[in-house]
Each structure stands twice: as C-alpha cells, then as structure tokens.
C-alpha cells in the first residue's frame, strides 16, 4: 500500500514542480507581441504567395501593424475587401489600388511563329534561356516550357497545347507576380485589370528591327509607331522597336487596335465588335503625334 502511495505522491510532486518551473519560465521569457498582428494575419488570405513583397502573410501582417501609413501596402490576393478589413482593425487609412492581373505579352503561336529547330533539353524555360534564343527566329518570345505555370500557386495558368503559349485564367489570378519572376524573358507583366476587366496591351516584347521581327513572327510588334500616332492620350511609347502601352494613361479608346499592321495589340473582354461604319479612318486624320 505504501508503495502505491509513495508512487502517487512522487509523481504528483514531480508534476507540481514541473508546473511551477513552466509557469516561471513562461513569465520570465514572455515576449510581448502586438495582438493586432494575429488579428491582421487572420484577416489575410494565408496564401503566403509573396505577392505583397513580404515573405509570407505573417511578415506582411507585422509590417502592416508597424507601418504608420499603410496606403502603399497591398495584398493582391485579398484585394480591396481584405485591405479594408485590415485598415479597419488597425484604424489606418487604406490605400487605393487597382486590382492587377497578369498578361502574357507574346502571341507567337505555332501558327504565327514557325519553329525552326527542336529544343530537347530539360523542360525548363530557364535552362533553355541559358542555352539559346529559342526554337523560333524570335529570341524574345515565349519558350513554351511552362516555368510560369509551374510557379503559379493559384491554379491560374495552364499551357495551351495548341498554341504552345501559357494562358492566364483571369478569375484565379491574384497578381502575386510569381510568374513574372519565373519568366526568363520578362514576357509576363502585371497590368491593371481595368474596368469590367477590359484592357489593352501590346502582345509582343520583340526588340528586333521591324523586318527581322516580322520575319520571325507574323504578329510581332514591328515598332512602326502607328499606334503611338493615333493614341489621343500619349499612352503609347516606342522604344527599341517596340510599342508599350502605359496602363495608367490608357483610357481604353481602342483606336490603336485596328491600326496595328501585325495585330500585335490585344483587347481583352470588350464586347464583340458591333458593325461600325468607317470608324477606322478617323484617327488617321488627327495630325497629333506623340513622337
């Protein structure tokens, strides 16, 4: 009987001692942490994609709590809703940020851009880019090996087998920028999603001279500048034989789309073209030129 008693007492004593030590230790080594960090973290989408520029949602939450002005900080995944919640928790002014979306600035499908050789190394754009300029005559275009798709954590990209180009599923894209970093050719760009997801961009990054670019790919931007001439808002610049539309200036008037001789300018999510009577000639009459 006494053995049982001694055993029970000893164990109970040990337990009590351990509890005291643990309590003391937890008091002594207590780290003060702003409780709002946890609140903010909970409000964030926990995607840990790094799209905000911080390593994970926790780090972003810490930064949000620390910063006096959070208008520069934005969670691309959560968007305005999440940022409003966060701003509410912290009692700070939230910034205005238009939602972004990734666009693929290459339209060099198999049809438009003939393959001149056959790549057969490791299936990785980065490996191919370290080796050479690619299967086609265009050394700026998409390799079609899917590093961007691999990098996407949101199931927002897939490789179109037919065209050999990546496709972005707009609804899933959170504009975290992982694909932008993964692309060795800097083809993918984050652009403003635009009202009703409508946007216009030059779907080409080829900086070769017009004739060379055109020879390599039917739909390459040849840097002719026609689009820049018709643009009423000075949104288009031509640099290194390549047109670029500044999405902050672009007002989606779409005047540049029809004048492009190679159809390199893409419009997305606009309603299907209605029959429009001789609208195309109008812009050519305006003598303004942005160059």
């Amino acid at each position, binding site marked *: 009987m006494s053995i049982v008693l001694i055993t029970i007492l000893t164990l109970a004593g040990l337990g009590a001692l351990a509890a005291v030590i643990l309590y003391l230790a937890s008091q002594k080594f207590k780290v003060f942490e702003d409780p709002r960090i946890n609140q903010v973290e909970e409000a964030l989408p926990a995607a840990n994609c790094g799209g905000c520029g911080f390593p994970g949602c926790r780090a972003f939450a810490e930064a949000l709590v620390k910063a006096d002005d959070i208008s520069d900080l934005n969670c691309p995944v959560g968007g305005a809703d999440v940022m409003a919640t966060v701003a509410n928790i912290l009692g700070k002014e939230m910034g205005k940020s238009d939602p972004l979306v990734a666009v693929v600035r290459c339209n060099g499908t198999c049809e438009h851009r003939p393959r*001149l*050789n056959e790549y*057969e*190394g*490791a299936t*990785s754009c*980065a*490996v191919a880019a*370290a*080796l*050479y*300029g*690619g*299967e086609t*005559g265009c*050394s700026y275009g998409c390799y079609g090996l899917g590093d961007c798709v691999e990098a996407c954590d949101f199931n927002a990209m897939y490789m179109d087998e037919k065209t050999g180009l990546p496709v972005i599923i707009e609804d899933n894209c959170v504009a975290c920028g992982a694909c932008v970093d993964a692309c060795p050719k800097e083809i993918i760009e984050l652009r403003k999603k635009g009202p009703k997801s409508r946007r216009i961009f030059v779907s080409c990054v080829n900086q*070769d001279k017009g004739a060379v670019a055109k020879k390599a790919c039917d739909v390459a931007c040849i840097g002719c500048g026609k689009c820049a001439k018709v643009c009423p808002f000075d949104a288009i610049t031509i640099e290194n034989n390549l047109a670029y539309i500044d999405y902050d200036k672009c007002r989606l008037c779409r005047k540049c789309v029809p004048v492009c001789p190679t159809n390199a300018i893409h419009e997305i999510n606009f309603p299907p073209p209605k029959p429009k009577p001789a609208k195309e000639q109008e812009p050519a009459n305006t003598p303004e030129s942005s160059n």
Partner: protein
Amino acid sequence: MLKTFSLGGIHPADRKISAGKSIEVLPLPKRVVVPLAQHIGAPAKTELKKGDQIKTGQVIAKSGGFVSANIHSPVSGKVFKLDEVVDASGYRKPVIIIDVEGDEWDESIDRSETLKTEISLSSEEIIKKVGEMGIVGMGGATFPAHVKLSPPPGKKCDVLIINGVECEPFLTSDHRVMLEKGDELIVGVKILMKALKVDRAVIGIENNKPDAIQHLTTLTENEQGIEIQPLKVQYPQGGEKQLIDAVIGRQVPSGKLPIEVGAVVHNVGTTLAVYEAVQKNKPLIERVVTVTGPGVSKPSNFLARIGTPVSQLIEAAGGLPDNTGKVIGGGPMMGKALSNLEVPITKGSSGILVLPHEEAHRKPVENCIRCGKCVSVCPMGLEPYLLMIEAEKELLDRAESDNIMDCIECGSCSFTCPANRPLLDYIRLGKGNVGKIIRNRN
C-alpha cells in the same frame, strides 16, 4: 600504369573517324562573318565603316580591355556591313561582315613555310606580341592567351603544360596539328617557356594517339626540359585542372587558377598560333577544324579562316547527310548544338560534329534511383544529383556550399545517368544563378 587524373572520369567511345585525314586548306568563302566577341572577356571594339577596304591579317577590332583580344581580318576585301546576327547561341551579337576579294595579305606577315627556330624576342615582347595577335585558348575556352602568360604578382609558374589530350570523342584537330606541325609546335613550346621563364614543359597526350606521342618524342629527344607525357585515356582529361592533376599530380584548389600550383596550361592549337604570331608575325585568322560525324561522307580536318560559315565546312566534307538530327559546334560532350548553320566558325571552334537523327535525341527522363554513378564519375568530386535538385528548387545557398561553382560542365554526370536525368542542364543554370549572387555580394 599510365598517369591520369585522380577523381571520377568516364570512357565515352572514341570514334575519331577523321584521325587519319591530313589537314586540308579550305577554299576561301565568298563572305565572312567575324563576331566581335570570340573570347572570354570584353568584346573587341571596331572602328571600321561599311565599304572600308581591308587586307588579310589587318586589325579590324581592338581589344576591349585587359581580358580581351584583338580581332584581325581573316580575308581581304570590303566591309559589307557592321551588323548584329544570330550567333551559335541564338542571340544577336555584333559582327563584321566582309565580302572577300582576292587574298591580299598584310605585308608584315611572313607567309613562307620555313621553320624559324631562333627566338629573338624577349619574354615581355613575346607576351605583348601574343596579345597583339589576338591569340586565345583554342581548345574551346577562348581565354586570351597573353593573360595566362602574365602571372599575377606574387605567383610563380614553374611548369608549362601543353594540352594535347583532345579527350572529346570525334575531334582530331589537335591530333593532326601534333602530327603535321610538330616542329613548329616544339618551337611554340619554347617560346611559351621563354615567356613564362620556366625551364620545364610537359606535353600531355592521351594514349589513343600513339603516332603523335611517337612523333613528338622523336622531335624532343634533344630538347632540354620538354617532356612528352602519355596519359591513360579518360574523359575529361583535357580539362585544365584534370590535366594538371594527371601530369604533375597537383590539384588546383577550388575557385583558384592553375597558377596557384605553379602551372600554366596551353592547348596545342594555341601553341602553334603562338609560334606563328611570334616567329611569322601572323595573327590568329585561321585554325584547324574537324568536320566529322557518323553520317558525314568525307570526315576531314580543315584549315579554315575564322568567319567561314559552318555550312561551307560541312559542304566541303561531303554535305549534310539526309538524316541529320543535330549539328554541334565542338565535341559531343561539351559542344554547343547549333540552331542555324550559317553561323561562322570562331577562334574557339575545334570541330563541327554532325549527328544523325537516331543519335540526336535524349531519352525520356525517369526518377533518380540514387545509384550514385554521377557522384562516382564527377571529376571534381561533386554530387551532381544533389546539385541538380538544389538548382531546380533554387536552394542556391546550399548549392553554393556544396561547391556548385567548382563544376567544370564536363557532362560526365548526364552522360552516365541511367535515368537520363538532365543533371548538367540544371547544374549549369544553378551555377549561373549562384554566380550572380556571388557577384552581387562583392
């Protein structure tokens, strides 16, 4: 037991089908394309204009820095254009395109065949001359030769090693140079010895070239300080660090140059070019190029002018076979696959290899079975399987601590992998990325 290097190594099939073919002079092309970056280091700068009349051997682009090299016109004629064209890598690089008119050489060049053994220039003059004549490592690395001949302060060279290994399968240009230009080669060795102020030179030759070993041994019988060292056949013995290990048993430490262990290595082709530059005042405007392959009807060794299009060399060797799958600039282990046959040969082109379709494809990649064969063949004692994962997953700090930068890109790991894994593809990528990090750190 013949000497060889101490770690790893593989034995790819030799297939030196053009070994018995003597060097033929390739007819002049109609137009040459001379790239401005034919060497490691800064590209050369040109002041030529379209329409300028130039002579063979005239400087057409000046060295762009200490680690750089002059470029001389390989032909005489008129500058057609200064342009940017797609080179072997598929990217656009600046070139000078020259329309060939006759073959009028610069007067300063001695074109006679007579052997000139007496070395009149001093060490410094030799180094200067080698730099002026645009000589670079002709084994493929294209490192400017005069830089190698000028050891950094505090370092001393005590042995010159001449690389006659030619461990790449198929290639035979160095082999033919040793057989046909033996006398010139020995004088070249003596010039390099004088430049480096050393009294010992060793020519390393693999045992699969007994005729070259025999020939050079006879020639050097009465030469003081020049030895011929036959080596056991093993790839990549032609790698600088492996060759030093094989010949004199010294291992160059990680990240260091051969001069660290008192050795300087020059290729056979480079040595011949040094002879011609110093004794004959002839710049590096032509080189021996092997054109070979299982389907090539006339495998040959050509003496071709720099800037000749690859297609013309293949034409001279009997044309491109019907079932061609791959054309490689260089050997099968380290050469670059060409996407375009109009690219010119450069100072570093040792061969053109044409592979038929059945040999041009890789086999499907399978899971790593951890057999460890890549580890045991790696001549640098690295773990390719691990480096590949680290490069693929971008664990670059770990890749760096696993010595990824030591990789010499010999390809032994990919060659030997039973699961056909693209080990070197990823290691090369990882090396590039780690290299960037290291450069940013400094």
